[in-house]
């Protein structure tokens, strides 16, 4: 045991002095992670706001043909901005991003309106526009459609028909999400970030302690130390694990701080990531570090050089994070099997913590138990690997 601690302490201190390792463990996750999270959330918040009744201006060609329609749009916060452009010019202006959309009202609009014939209006927008032109076009279309419905009902009543009879079906959309659950939907990426940052934080140490040690030529000397060889590698795994846990703590803490600066409440989302929540997030995900450190060490032990290890480990760290990317697409639901799947189970537990739901004891046991068991097996395999002669390379 003392030997394991000796190796652990040396690896811990030595790697603390390595800028590359320090950057990956203490800077990448904790700094870039929350920044990405905050930026993405802020973006979705502000895009969400665009569909609300925020005042907007709308370039209109031929506004003089439909003054009542213009007044109606004005009442919905859409201010007409009269333009004098031909169709080609409108297309060019949108392509050049001078305007994001335009409304064109033909000269015969008023005439057709008066005759109760369908009066056409044209909305020009670029549906491939990622900057909200399309969303604004939807808003304008909705406003015009609503006005159209209102007018048609009035016309029916004037002709003595009950407008209700023209509506055989009505759909009510009922959003049952709570502010907290809407927030966690957007925060699905927090667990992904935290797990990725954790694995990444231990990656370089895992490489340095195995392939790096061999490449430097210090492995032979180390293997002549009078202690069982597996103890040497257990010490190294422990150091990798420590870096992973530190990286995770820092990332979660930094996310908690960063979230204070995102105006989630304005978007109808509430999210509390106080010290207790942060601690819980850490506790439910910590067992994954045992598995991660074991996995990376085993993979790195097979490689011949630092560079080779680097390319393999980049794959290895994406393995546990990949399922998280597909969770939404595959619609994976928590089940005992999922709760026994490392990384997936941690994701679901973290989501539960963020939603403020109670954690079920069986879920916790499945999640921690499976990660610790598989992690333990991987550590044992790493120990066996160091008893092989081939480890000398």
């Amino acid at each position, binding site marked *: 045991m*003392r*030997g394991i601690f*000796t*190796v652990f302490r*040396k690896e811990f*201190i*030595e*790697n603390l*002095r*390595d800028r590359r390792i320090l950057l990956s463990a203490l800077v990448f996750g904790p700094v870039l992670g929350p920044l990405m999270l905050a930026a993405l959330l802020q973006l979705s918040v502000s895009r969400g706001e665009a569909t609300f009744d925020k005042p907007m201006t709308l370039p209109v060609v031929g506004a003089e043909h439909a003054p009542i329609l213009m007044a109606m749009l004005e009442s919905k916060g859409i201010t007409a901005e009269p333009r004098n452009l031909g169709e080609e010019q409108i297309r060019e202006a949108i392509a050049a991003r001078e305007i994001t959309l335009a409304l064109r009202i033909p000269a015969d609009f008023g005439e057709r309106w008066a005759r109760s014939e369908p009066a056409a209006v044209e909305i020009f927008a670029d549906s491939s526009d990622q900057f909200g032109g399309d969303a604004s076009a939807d808003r304008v279309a909705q406003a015009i459609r609503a006005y159209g419905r209102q007018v048609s009902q009035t016309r029916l009543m004037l002709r003595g028909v009950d407008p209700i009879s023209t509506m055989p079906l009505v759909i009510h959309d009922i959003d049952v999400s709570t502010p907290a659950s809407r927030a966690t939907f957007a925060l699905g990426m927090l667990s992904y970030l935290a797990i990725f940052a954790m694995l990444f934080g231990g990656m370089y140490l895992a490489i340095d302690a195995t392939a790096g*040690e061999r490449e*430097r*030529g*210090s*492995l*032979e*000397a*180390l*293997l*002549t*130390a*009078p*202690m*069982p060889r597996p103890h040497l590698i257990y010490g190294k795994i422990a150091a990798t694990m420590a870096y992973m846990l530190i990286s995770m703590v820092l990332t979660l803490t930094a996310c908690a701080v960063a979230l204070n600066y995102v105006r989630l409440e304005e978007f109808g989302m509430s999210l509390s990531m106080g010290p207790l929540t942060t601690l819980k997030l850490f506790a439910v995900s910590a067992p994954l570090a045992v598995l991660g450190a074991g996995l990376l060490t085993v993979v790195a032990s097979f490689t011949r050089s630092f560079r080779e290890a680097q390319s393999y480990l980049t794959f290895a760290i994406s393995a546990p994070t990949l399922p998280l990317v597909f969770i939404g697409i595959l619609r994976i639901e928590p089940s005992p099997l999922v709760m026994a799947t490392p990384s997936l189970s941690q994701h679901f537990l973290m989501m539960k913590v963020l939603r403020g739901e109670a954690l079920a004891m069986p879920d916790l046991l499945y999640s921690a138990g499976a990660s610790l068991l598989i992690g333990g097996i991987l550590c044992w395999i790493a120990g066996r690997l160091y008893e092989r*002669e081939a480890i*000398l390379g």
Partner: protein
Amino acid sequence: MITVNALSKRFGKVEAVRSVSFAAPDGRITGLLGPNGAGKSTTLRMLATLLRPDSGDALVDGQSATTAPIEVRRRIGVLSHSSGLYPQLTARENILYFAELHGIDRQQARARVAELAALLEIGEFLDRKTKGFSQGQRLKTALARALVHSPRNLILDEPTNGLDVMAVRNLRALLSRLREQGHCVLFSSHVMQEVALLCDEVVVIAQGRVAASGTVEALRSQAGEATLEDAFVKLIGTAEGLN
């Protein structure tokens, strides 16, 4: 005292070491001489418990390398071929790490490092990170690391590789001093002059077998040749791979 009994090792189809036997007594410097690829490093690695022999055994102060490897490791200091150091640690930390791995307590280890620093003349770079050390500085640090637990037996694999003349002279002086203190020193080399200058006993290895062994004088008369070089060439059968 190191005793090697009929040690054999093969890697796949290659028979690297075939039934090698010799003894390296205390208070003597024993040289393992042979061309590159003769099986010197493999033999030393088996002695250092890094490789397991396919058959035969090596005894270090009576402890078996196959059945009691940890006991053997306590009794040997190994300077391996590569002798890599940890670049982010200072020379002192490198040495102290191994002292700790050997279970030496802190205070004792510090005293031992001071002792070795004086012996190996490494005081001036003892507290510098080993990143960027010269070959000579690296070797001295690695040597101090190998000696930190005061092993009775010292095993060195091609220790003079890449050293300049002064460093080689210093190493020679050091090994002589260890011999005087009663240590068993075993080292491998493919440099004839070096072996002739330093060794009390020579074991000539070629193609995985012991071709001859004895003192330099004995080898010379055994081969019936006037010069050392001719004697070695005759014993090995070829001059290939020798310097």
